C-alpha cells in the first residue's frame, strides 16, 4: 500500500509529465457511446499503425466529453503545440491526423473542434467557445473526457480525494453544515434536500448505518450517470466516502444496472485502487473511520430505482416497494438506517467540500443551487451530455446549447424526467430549469433526461409510449398502479387506433388522478404525468384523434392511409416489390394501386418510391381540398 501523501506526490509528477509530454498523446473518447459510434475500430487502426510504423506515441482511453453527436472524439497532444480536440474521427481520419498534424505541419483544421489548451494554431479556435460548450458550466463533468478513468493518479492530480480529506479534518458535523449551506438537493429527481436526509439518518438510533449509491439509471432516455461513472468513477466514489463518513456508515453499496458493463468494470477497478490507497477498509487514513464498499448488480427492473424497492432487491428478494414511513433513513436495509443517494448527488460532494459551499452556490436559482447534468437527446441538432447552471431557461438549453431542431422542423415539446415526467410545450420554453418551475408545469426535473420533440412526434403516441413502459414495469403490488396504468394504456391504445370517444378524455383524467393519489411508490405516483401534461397542453391533438380520426404528426399508423398519385406513378414497381403484404398491384410501366383493405400502413412504399417520382403520398383524417378533388377524379376514371 502506498501512503496517500506519497500517491499525491507521484500523481502530481505523473500528471505534469503528461501535460508537457515529449511524445504525442491521443486521448480517445471510449465510453459506451464513443464505442457505439466507432471508437473501437478507430482505436484498433491507430494502435495497429503506431505498432507497425513504430511511432513513438501514447494512446489513452478517456470518458465522454459530452458532444455525443460528434463521436468519436479525440484530443491530440502534439509536443510544442496546443492540444486539439477533433470530432467525427473514424479510422481514416485518425491516421490522417497522425500523419499530417502530429508528424507533419497541417493541423487538420477541417475536423478540429477547438484547442483544449492555450496557444496559437492557425484556423482553430478555442474548444470552450464551441457553441455546445459556451453556455455550459462543467463542474461535475470537469474530468470527463480529460483524464484516464482507469488511472487513479489522474484523479488524484486533479484535486482528487481532497474533499474527503477536508471532511475528515472538519468532522461529520461540520461536513453536514457545509452540505446544508450549499443547498444541494437530491439529483435523482425528487429534489429532497440532501442534508435533511442525512440529518434523519444521523439522528436515527443504532450503530450500524448504510449508504447506498443508486446507479440504477432506469429512465429511458437518460445516460448522465453512466457517463459520469465511465468517465470519472473516483468522483462518485469520493462522494460515497464523504457521505458515508458524515452518516457514520460502515458499509456502502453501489447498485448499478447490469446493462452498464463498462461502468461496473470501471467501478470495480476504482474500488480496488481505493483499497491500495488506503481509502477503504479499517481506520481509513488513521481517522478512526472504517468503511467498505460492495457493488450490487441490478437485474433489470425499473422499479428498483425506487428506494424501498432497491433495498428489497439488495436484500435478495423481489424488488417491490413498501409503504413509507418508516423512511429508509430510519429503517432501511435490513432494518437499519440507510441513506440512498443518486450518483450525481454524490458526485457533487467532493466539489462542495473542496471549494466550499459558497463557491458551489454561486450558480443556481433561489431554491435550486449548483449545476445539473442533462442528457440532451431526441430531435435536436447537437445531442449529448450537458451540464448547465440551474435556473437556465429551456430555450437556452435547446437552442444555444442544443443548436435547435434539425431539418427546419418546428419544436413541439420537451420531455423531462422520463416516464415520471411530462411534456412541456414549445410556448413554455422560457421556463427556468429548476425543481419548482418544472413541477409547476406538470413535469419534474427527474434525473436529467431531456428529450426534444418536434412536429413529427405525436403526443398521444408519446403518452402511450410512456404508459406502456410504466405499465410493463409496474411491480403489481398496489392496485392503483397495477390496474390504473393498464386502464390508461388501453384507453390510449384505443384513441391511437381511431376508436376513441370524447368521454375517454375525462375518464383518462379521472384515472390519472386516482393513480397519482393512490399509488404506493414514486413509480405509480408519477406514472400519470405524461398523460396529464399531454392532455393539459395538447388536448387539441387528442380531440383530433378522436373526432377526425386524424394524427397530425403521421405517427399513429391506423389513422394513416397511403395512396399512389396516378399522374406521377410511372409503374416502376419498387413499391410493389417492398410491400410486405402484397397490397400493391399494377402492370409494369402503368400506375399502381394500393388495396386499402390489405394495407397494414407500414409506410414502406412511401420511403421506397424514388424521389424523382414521389408518387406515393399519405394522409390522415379529413381530406384536404386538393385530395378530395383528386379522389373524385380517381373514382370517375
Amino acid at each position: 500500500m502506498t501512503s496517500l501523501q506519497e500517491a499525491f506526490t507521484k500523481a502530481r509528477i505523473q500528471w505534469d509529465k503528461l501535460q508537457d509530454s515529449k511524445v504525442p498523446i491521443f486521448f480517445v473518447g471510449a465510453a459506451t457511446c464513443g464505442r457505439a459510434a466507432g471508437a473501437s475500430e478507430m482505436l484498433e487502426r491507430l494502435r495497429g499503425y503506431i505498432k507497425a510504423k513504430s511511432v513513438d506515441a501514447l494512446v489513452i482511453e478517456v470518458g465522454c466529453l459530452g458532444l455525443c453527436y460528434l463521436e468519436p472524439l479525440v484530443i491530440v497532444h502534439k509536443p510544442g503545440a496546443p492540444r486539439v480536440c477533433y470530432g467525427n474521427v473514424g479510422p481514416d481520419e485518425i491516421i490522417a491526423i497522425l500523419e499530417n498534424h502530429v508528424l507533419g505541419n497541417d493541423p487538420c483544421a477541417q475536423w478540429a473542434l477547438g484547442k483544449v489548451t492555450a496557444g496559437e494554431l492557425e484556423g482553430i479556435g478555442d474548444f470552450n467557445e464551441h457553441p455546445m460548450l459556451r453556455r455550459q458550466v462543467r463542474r461535475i463533468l470537469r474530468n470527463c473526457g480529460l483524464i484516464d478513468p482507469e488511472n487513479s493518479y489522474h484523479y488524484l492530480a486533479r484535486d482528487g480525494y481532497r474533499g474527503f480529506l477536508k471532511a475528515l479534518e472538519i468532522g461529520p458535523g461540520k461536513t453536514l453544515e457545509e452540505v446544508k449551506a450549499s443547498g444541494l438537493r437530491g439529483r435523482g429527481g425528487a429534489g429532497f434536500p440532501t442534508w435533511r436526509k442525512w440529518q434523519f439518518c444521523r439522528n436515527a438510533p443504532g450503530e450500524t448505518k448504510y449508504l447506498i449509491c443508486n446507479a440504477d439509471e432506469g429512465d429511458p432516455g437518460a445516460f448522465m450517470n453512466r457517463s459520469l461513472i465511465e468517465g470519472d468513477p473516483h468522483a462518485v466514489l469520493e462522494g460515497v466516502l464523504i457521505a458515508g463518513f458524515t452518516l457514520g456508515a460502515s458499509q456502502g453499496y453501489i447498485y448499478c444496472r447490469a446493462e452498464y458493463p463498462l461502468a461496473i468494470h470501471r467501478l470495480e477497478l476504482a474500488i480496488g485502487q481505493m483499497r491500495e490507497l488506503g481509502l477503504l477498509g479499517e481506520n481509513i487514513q488513521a481517522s478512526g473511520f472504517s468503511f467498505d464498499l460492495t457493488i450490487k448488480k441490478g437485474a433489470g427492473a425499473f422499479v428498483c430505482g425506487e428506494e424501498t424497492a432497491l433495498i428489497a432487491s439488495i436484500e435478495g428478494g423481489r424488488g417491490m416497494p413498501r409503504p413509507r414511513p418508516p423512511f429508509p433513513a430510519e429503517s432501511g436495509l435490513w432494518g437499519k438506517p440507510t441513506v440512498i443517494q443518486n450518483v450525481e448527488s454524490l458526485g457533487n460532494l467532493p466539489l462542495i467540500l473542496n471549494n466550499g459551499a459558497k463557491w458551489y452556490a454561486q450558480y443556481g436559482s433561489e431554491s435550486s443551487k449548483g449545476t445539473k447534468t442533462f442528457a440532451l437527446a431526441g430531435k435536436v441538432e447537437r445531442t449529448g451530455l450537458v451540464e448547465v447552471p440551474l435556473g437556465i431557461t429551456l430555450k437556452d438549453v435547446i437552442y444555444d446549447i442544443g443548436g435547435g431542431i434539425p431539418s427546419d422542423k418546428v419544436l413541439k415539446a420537451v420531455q423531462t424526467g422520463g416516464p415520471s415526467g411530462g411534456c412541456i410545450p414549445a410556448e413554455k420554453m422560457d421556463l427556468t430549469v429548476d425543481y419548482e418551475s418544472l413541477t409547476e408545469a406538470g413535469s419534474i426535473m427527474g434525473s436529467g433526461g431531456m428529450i426534444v420533440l418536434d412536429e413529427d412526434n405525436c403526443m398521444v403516441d408519446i403518452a402511450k409510449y410512456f404508459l406502456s413502459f410504466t405499465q410493463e414495469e409496474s411491480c403489481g403490488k398496489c392496485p392503483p398502479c397495477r390496474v390504473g396504468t393498464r386502464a390508461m394504456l388501453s384507453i390510449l391504445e384505443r384513441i391511437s387506433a381511431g376508436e376513441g370517444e370524447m368521454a375517454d378524455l375525462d375518464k383518462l383524467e379521472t384515472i390519472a388522478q386516482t393513480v397519482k393519489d393512490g399509488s404506493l411508490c414514486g413509480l405509480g405516483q408519477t406514472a400519470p404525468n405524461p398523460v396529464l401534461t399531454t392532455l393539459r397542453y395538447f388536448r387539441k391533438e387528442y380531440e383530433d384523434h378522436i373526432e377526425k380520426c386524424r394524427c397530425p404528426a403521421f405517427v399513429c399508423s391506423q389513422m394513416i392511409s397511403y395512396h399512389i398519385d396516378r399522374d406521377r406513378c410511372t409503374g416502376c414497381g419498387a413499391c410493389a416489390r417492398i410491400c410486405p403484404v402484397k397490397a400493391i398491384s399494377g402492370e409494369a410501366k402503368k400506375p399502381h394501386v394500393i388495396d386499402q383493405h390489405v394495407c397494414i400502413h407500414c409506410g414502406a412504399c412511401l420511403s421506397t418510391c424514388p424521389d424523382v417520382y414521389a408518387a406515393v403520398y399519405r394522409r390522415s383524417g379529413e381530406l384536404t381540398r386538393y385530395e378530395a378533388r383528386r379522389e373524385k377524379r380517381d373514382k370517375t376514371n
Partner: protein
Amino acid sequence: MKHILSQHLGKRSSLIPFLQDIQKEFGYLSTKAIDELSRSTDISANEIYGVATFYTQFRFSPPGEHTVRVCQGTACHVRRGRQILNEVEQQLKIKAGQTTEDRKFDLERVACLGCCALAPVVVVDDKVHARMTAKKISSVLSQYKGRQTRKK
C-alpha cells in the same frame, strides 16, 4: 455449478448474484440449476422462481447464438425505433422475446441502453450499432448470419 455455489454461500442477499452467475455460466436458468441452488441454499425453489421471474435479466430457456437487442428507449422511440424493431422482427421472422428456429438469433427489446445521443441503436451481442435505419439493419444482421460471413 459447485464453483458458483461455493462463492457466495450463506447469505440470502446473495440470491441475485447467484442467479446472475449461473446465467453467465450456462446462458439461462435451467430447472436443474434452480433445484440444485435451492438444495444448497435452503431457499425454496418457489421462492427462487419468484425472485428470478421478477427481473427481466433472467431467462429460462437456452439462448440463441447471437442476441439482438433493439432499444426502445425514449430517444430511440422518437427517432422511430419501433420501425427498426418491426423490421428486425420481419427479417428474423420472430417476435421480440423469441428465438429463431435455428437458434441463431434471440430478439429482445430493451428499455434503454444509454446511447441516446446515437439513437436509434441496436445491440448485437456486445456490439452497439448506432444510428440505425430500416435499410441498414439487414446488412448488420447478415454480418452475423454464418454463411454470409464466411463468403467475405
